[in-house]
């Protein structure tokens, strides 16, 4: 199947992602405006960083003028998740030249990873491994999802920024709540097993003393420590 036909297939498969991106992109745009970012910064962040969790992670440190290292490490730790996602997708793009791969990789995100990944696995099973060889077709499907979702994200965040300008005074509390409230809801809706809720609960509780001990690094260090301890304990218990 041609690249453009697969692109259309991908775009159709991305419709649920567009719907999910509308509230989160609006929420981020509103939060960014209320934290004092400019429209130029909001646009650049959404189009160039293009990562909801990382954009959320750096928003407060960036707005409060925390050190560059705090901002960059917070963003980097959040974006490390792209490594396994991109690694898992790579075999399905076999034969594609490096430049198109480099350009397409910009739209790898949690949402634009899971839909094509499941689709490619299904197609591989159905075709007895043949679909893996169709690297350009698979890339078309992936870009159909990734590029359209990316567009929705960028337009949504800039629209959110514009909407926030129209909020009357007295609504600051609601604006401040939008992003943490949305992410808390997302985490809960996706939560599985016992380790994840425990890690989340302990991270929420320990972030405050961590931030009081060191306003720049405290919350970052405690969150990383909680995740590593939770992961280590889970591994240890599964062996015992």
């Amino acid at each position, binding site marked *: 199947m041609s690249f453009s036909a697969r692109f259309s297939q991908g775009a159709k498969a991305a419709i649920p992602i567009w719907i999910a991106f509308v509230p989160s992109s609006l929420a981020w745009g509103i939060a960014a405006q209320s934290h004092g970012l400019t429209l130029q910064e909001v646009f650049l962040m959404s189009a160039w960083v293009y990562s909801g969790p990382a954009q959320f992670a750096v928003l407060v440190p960036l707005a409060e003028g925390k050190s*560059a290292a705090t901002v960059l490490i917070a963003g980097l730790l959040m*974006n490390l998740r792209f490594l*396994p996602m991109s690694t898992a997708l790579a075999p399905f793009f076999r034969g594609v030249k490096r430049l198109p791969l480099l350009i397409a990789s910009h739209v790898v995100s949690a949402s634009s990873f899971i839909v094509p990944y499941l689709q490619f696995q299904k197609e591989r099973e159905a075709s007895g491994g043949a679909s893996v060889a169709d690297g350009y077709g698979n890339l078309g499907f992936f870009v159909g999802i990734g590029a359209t979702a990316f567009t929705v994200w960028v337009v949504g965040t800039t629209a959110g920024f514009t909407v926030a300008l129209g909020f009357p005074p007295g609504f600051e509390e609601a604006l401040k709540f939008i992003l943490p409230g949305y992410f*808390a809801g997302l985490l809960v809706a996706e939560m599985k097993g016992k380790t994840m809720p425990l*890690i989340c609960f302990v991270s929420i509780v320990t972030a405050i003393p961590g931030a009081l001990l060191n306003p720049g690094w405290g919350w970052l260090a*405690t*969150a990383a420590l909680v*995740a590593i301890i939770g992961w280590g304990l889970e591994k240890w218990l599964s062996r015992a």
Partner: protein
Amino acid sequence: MAFSRLELIFILGASALLLRALPQLFLVGKSFPETWDRLLRYLSYALLCGLISITLFMSGARFESDRALYRGVALAVTIAIAYKTKSAVTGMLVGMVLVLLLSWLG
């Protein structure tokens, strides 16, 4: 070395692209160990939860004790509704209205 906000955003985007592109360009046919994948997932969840906490309860280096109670209640309600309805948007909207009402009442 001081960076402007735009420069920081640019560096952040470049590092994100690097993490996205490296496996595509150099790791074709390799697999990422499941256990490390799990650690990275836990790391991003823990960081998000830490962020939720400091965004809601801290203002710079100060704990906002006067607003912590009603924001905490709104967060708990958001979590309960998102869990029950499996909808983050519904949870957020209810929490947003609640935090606004409680802030006006307080």
